[in-house]
């Protein structure tokens, strides 16, 4: 069961939170991620935040893709 989407935490009230993804808001529980703060992105699965997304790592991954792309461009001059 893997459908989990990145959602932004908009407000927190105890273990209840409101999250937003692409303009859609939903209630979520942060029982599994009590360290989540307003403004964090979490992975939302069946109404629960199962992890806080590491934004730095996300940027790193994109950087890796960029580097790969540039290397490919250099190596194949078509």
């Amino acid at each position, binding site marked *: *069961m*893997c459908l989990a989407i*990145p959602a932004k935490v908009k407000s927190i009230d105890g273990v209840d939170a409101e999250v937003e993804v692409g303009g859609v808001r939903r209630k979520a529980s942060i029982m599994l991620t009590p360290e989540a703060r307003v403004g964090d992105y979490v992975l939302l699965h069946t109404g629960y935040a199962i*992890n806080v997304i*590491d934004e730095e790592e996300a940027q790193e991954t*994109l950087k890796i*893709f*960029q580097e790969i792309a540039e290397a490919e461009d250099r190596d194949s001059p078509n």
Partner: protein
Amino acid sequence: MKFINEYRDAELGKKLIARIQQRSTKPARLMEFCGGHTVSIAKHGIRQLLPPTITMLSGPGCPVCVTASADLDKAIALAKLPGVIITTFGDMIKVPASRSSLQQVKAEGGDVRIVYSTLDALKIAQGNPSKSVIFIGVGFETTAPTVAASVLQAAQQAIDNYYVLSLHKLCPPVVKALLDSGEVKLDGIVCPGHVSAIIGSHPYEFIPRDYGIACVISGFEPLDILQCVDMLVDQIESGQPKVEIAYRRGVKPEGNKIALELMYKVFEVCDGNWRGIGVVPGSGLRLRKGYQRYDAERNFEIRAGEPVEPKGCICGDVLRAVKMPLDCKLFRKVCNPEHPVGPCMVSSEGSCAAYYQYGEGYGR
């Protein structure tokens, strides 16, 4: 959508594909274990984009597909009891069990409701104090902690008409069982992304260590999967299998400790009954004695009858990646999403459904 769209960039994708095509020289048989990956690969047509050295196989990563008929029969027996409201994820409702399905029970008057979350099931329990609300707990380590959380909430809020039928399963033990069976030769595994968000990367270490198979934990967007394949190819080409995390924004090596704690507070490990594979020791979860008041198995009389497997259905072989959907005599002709014979076709994540829906192997 942030953290989604960036990982669907076609230009970057083309470059990743080019890199994989250059570097892959040795045959690489890769298995994606998670149903979410099966769907993503089919939906974005990833198989087509990879070089012929790479073969992608689908494993038993669809929790709906691997739910044994005997277990689903229990859910159906419960659904027929008076005063019971069954709450379930949408995925389960059409799966054919031995003699019926939850959808059929619903059509015959049973109170079966699709929910998106156990939070919804708890609300239904609070709103219907005279009924027993049973949640059908299906899913791997991604979902089990959320169900555990719901049991803890029920305890906190004194919701005493909420029950869980635990059909939860664990991933690493079944991967081991599959590898031990020797039925499939693998060079690499695309490890589940969100199961790993919970369990971390350490539980997979036995795979490269004891079997010499490469492991990379992958996200679900096309670029994530391509990056994972690229990293697997690297390990295979260099002959140095290990466990790596490609999905770094979602998975930490130690996983989500709190989620694991909650999961093991409510559940304990037991044997799991996997469709097509049989009983795999230590691969299931059941409610601990301390939470037995929420356990549907202990609180209701379940008369499920003898389990029956559909004739001609080779879902078991497909789940073990011994056969592909196209090898099944029933595929498409008899078994299709409208008239599914086995769970691999009816589950939105099942291999057969993905093959049918997205035309994998079409024209071949």
